[in-house]
């Protein structure tokens, strides 16, 4: 019979609260980057998802993602529908030193922030009604299956040996790819040609990035699911990669454009946090510096390439989360070591090149599924409720047109 551990329980519950704070932090991060006429709608996307997925996760999300497998490693069954049988006692399967409810709610916070990340791609032009339907459909049909594949002991990618400590593929790659598909589907913002509009509130964005960075300690160190040395390792690698990526992004943009960008520091930190997410509990602090360096360069380059295309991924979700998530997943296959986590595997640099191939398979499968399923969901919703608002509403701004409110009186 599994036995509860007070320290583990306290840490995981505190971590769940930290991860919860990331979604309002994301709202501020995105809110500052858009024009002032769309700040409320952008914040509302994240805030509404916080409420919405809090409910759907309890009702059916958790059992689909983590419930007993239906047989093929594809999806969980309905055994734990509305948390029937999920109690304050430890689970036999997951995190056996904490209440099953604590594990459930910790995972729920991941399910909340993942669809919220996508909202940056269709900012400033998406109809709220279509957004709500999309959020329910995507978290059910894309997030829950991918979480099951990678994190359930019965999941087929878990069985294949894919390593993803805290969600590089499940959270960031899946949402980043979905963002790219959404941006392509919904089209460019009216009148936005070439350089994107200036952010309306950079301090708001930096505050959001700070809250994300803070919450990410729960995201990654909490994924140790215990108050132990592995959590400490994940905490240190998380902070180190974020710092290294931030200073790398600033340096590259400084050399490229002539100024050390404040927004660049915020984007760089988030890119570093994304890339270390799958690796945090499998790599050393020294490796996290190399991961931060690499992702700072790669994601900056991805953002610059995106600017040269016609894809209006308004807040660069694909460049930061899609590319950063894929980079982190592959870097895990390079730097992972069982010296940090005996439950993991060694990577390429520790004599196991096969792990990198496994990670490539994981990235390809998750990316492909997210792309196809997201496109299908958007297509079907668009048949019932147009995804995009009319041009008149876009020109007036979504705050007023969709929500009947404005953010600022002066």
């Amino acid at each position, binding site marked *: 019979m599994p036995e509860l551990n007070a320290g583990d329980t306290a840490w995981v519950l505190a971590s769940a609260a930290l991860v919860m704070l990331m979604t309002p932090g994301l709202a501020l991060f995105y809110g500052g980057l858009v024009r002032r006429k769309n700040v409320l709608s952008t914040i509302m996307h994240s805030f509404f998802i916080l409420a919405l997925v809090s409910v759907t996760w309890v009702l059916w999300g958790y059992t689909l993602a983590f419930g007993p497998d239906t047989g093929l490693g594809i999806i969980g069954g309905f055994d734990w529908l*509305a948390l029937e049988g999920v109690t304050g006692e430890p689970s036999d399967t997951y995190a056996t030193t904490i209440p099953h409810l604590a594990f459930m709610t910790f995972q729920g916070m991941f399910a909340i922030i993942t669809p919220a990340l996508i909202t940056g791609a269709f900012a400033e032009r998406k109809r709220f*009604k279509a957004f709500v339907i999309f959020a329910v459909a995507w978290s059910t049909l894309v997030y829950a299956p991918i979480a099951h594949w990678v994190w359930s002991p019965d999941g087929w990618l878990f069985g294949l040996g894919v390593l993803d400590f805290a969600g590089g593929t499940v959270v960031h790659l899946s949402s980043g790819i979905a963002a790219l598909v959404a941006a392509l589907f919904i089209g460019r913002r009216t009148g936005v040609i070439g350089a994107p509009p200036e952010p309306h509130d950079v301090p708001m964005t930096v505050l959001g990035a700070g809250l994300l960075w803070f919450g990410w300690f729960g995201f990654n160190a909490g994924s140790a699911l215990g108050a132990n040395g592995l959590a400490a390792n994940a905490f240190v690698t998380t902070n180190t990669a974020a710092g290294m990526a931030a200073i790398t992004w600033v340096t590259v943009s400084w050399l490229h454009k002539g100024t050390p960008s404040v927004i660049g520091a915020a984007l760089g930190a988030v890119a570093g946090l994304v890339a270390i997410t799958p690796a945090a509990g499998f790599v050393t602090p020294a490796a996290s510096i190399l991961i931060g360096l690499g992702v700072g360069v790669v994601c900056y380059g991805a953002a610059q390439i995106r600017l040269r295309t016609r894809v209006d991924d308004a807040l660069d979700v694909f460049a930061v989360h899609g590319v950063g998530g894929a980079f982190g997943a592959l870097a895990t296959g390079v730097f992972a070591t069982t010296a940090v986590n005996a439950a993991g595997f060694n990577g390429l640099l520790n004599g196991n090149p096969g792990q990198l191939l496994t990670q490539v398979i994981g990235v390809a499968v998750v990316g492909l599924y997210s792309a196809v399923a997201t496109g299908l969901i958007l297509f079907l919703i668009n048949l019932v409720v147009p995804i995009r608002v009319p041009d008149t509403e876009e020109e*007036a701004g979504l705050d007023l047109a969709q929500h009947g409110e404005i953010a600022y009186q002066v």
Partner: protein
Amino acid sequence: MVIAALVSFAILFVAWIVAPEGAAVTTTHMIEAEPATPEAQPLAA
């Protein structure tokens, strides 16, 4: 209880689909939403 919880969410979901579409955008609203342009102030002596 599980059924009641699912039904309560389903009712909300249907309400979102049939709910009216946003606020009416009128010229007056748009003018009110425009940020005030600060007037130039003389520099203090």
